[in-house]
């Protein structure tokens, strides 16, 4: 039984990284495809498009930090909490990366035709990123609570 609990705990440890990576793959792919399409129609500013298309990669970085932090705290009594926090954090990171990819693709499409809106068109993508940051920060805060309360 303890092994099963620990296995779930490890699932929670790795979930933020794995799910964040899945989201980043999809988000970067979507935005990257839009960037390539925009290159067909423009003569310059390619680096800008590639920069935008890489924005959804930040979620996997948050996932790496959460995974590394959680891995040091895993014990039989903290494992159930780590499972819950980890899996839900991973789902939040994944959704954030995918939908940020949509926002970035739209930004690329619009700023290609109207370069003057480049900055402001990134605002929705930044807002989506903000939700990933919330999930990331609160995962770390909750880990402190878990370790303090259960793991002593």
């Amino acid at each position, binding site marked *: 039984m303890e092994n099963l609990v620990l296995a779930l705990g490890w699932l929670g440890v790795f979930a933020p990284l794995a799910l964040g990576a899945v989201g980043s793959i999809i988000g970067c792919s979507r935005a990257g495809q839009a960037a390539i*399409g*925009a290159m067909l129609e423009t003569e310059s500013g390619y680096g800008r498009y590639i920069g935008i298309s890489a924005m959804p990669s930040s979620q996997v970085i948050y996932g790496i930090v959460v995974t590394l932090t959680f891995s040091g705290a895993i014990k039989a009594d903290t494992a159930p909490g780590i499972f819950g926090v980890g899996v839900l954090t991973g789902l939040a990171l994944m959704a954030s990366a995918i939908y940020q990819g949509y926002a970035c693709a*739209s930004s690329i499409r619009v700023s*290609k035709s*109207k370069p003057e809106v480049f900055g402001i068109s990134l605002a929705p993508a930044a807002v989506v990123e903000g939700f990933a940051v919330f999930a990331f920060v609160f995962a770390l805060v909750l880990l402190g609570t878990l370790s303090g309360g259960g793991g002593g």
Partner: protein
Amino acid sequence: MKRQNQYYTLVASLPRLVRFDRAERLPINPQRLGERLRMLEPEDGEVVDRAVALLAWQGRPMARTGGEMAVEYGRLAELMDRPALKGVFEFPVNLRTVMAALRRRHRGLPVPEAGEPWGVGPLARHIERNWGEVDFGLTALYPWIPRARALLESGEALALERLLMSLNWERADRLAEGDEFGFEAVLAYLFKWDLVKRWLSHNGEAAKARFEELVSGVIDEKERVFG
């Protein structure tokens, strides 16, 4: 998933379409547009071919009689079996039928007899049944009809054409709202591109007529001055 992915590149590669009545030129020529559309999956490419056939049909209303239009529509209606195509073309077909009915009534012609080919699409029978009603009882569904009728009756042909094209343009815009990078967005773009092309061709004809008028004026003036 594969098809969906391809449209991110395709949609982002299409240049911005300025609204038809503000456009000075086509942002992409037919050859380049055709090349871009080759990014579509074969299945969707086939739907686009059907859309092009429907657009070609739409673009030549004056060259045929009502009967020819109805027969041709019957054949082309089979092309509208795809939901995406129906979404794009149902409204313009209905708009055309309503306008055909308004023009017919404006000319003082009687209600079409049963089986007489005058309009196309599902609205034709409804209009025949409600011929006596103002705007055929369709105002709730199409609130633009009173405005179109007023323009028709006052002979403001250009304003009427602008209104009808605006309605089609806005409809196409709404279709693409749901999925900015989906196949509907590609079809809506193609439809709007065709609207711009048609509007610009109208302007070209007007410019040609005006040019000929000016040339005639100059020749007449020359003959008057120099005998």
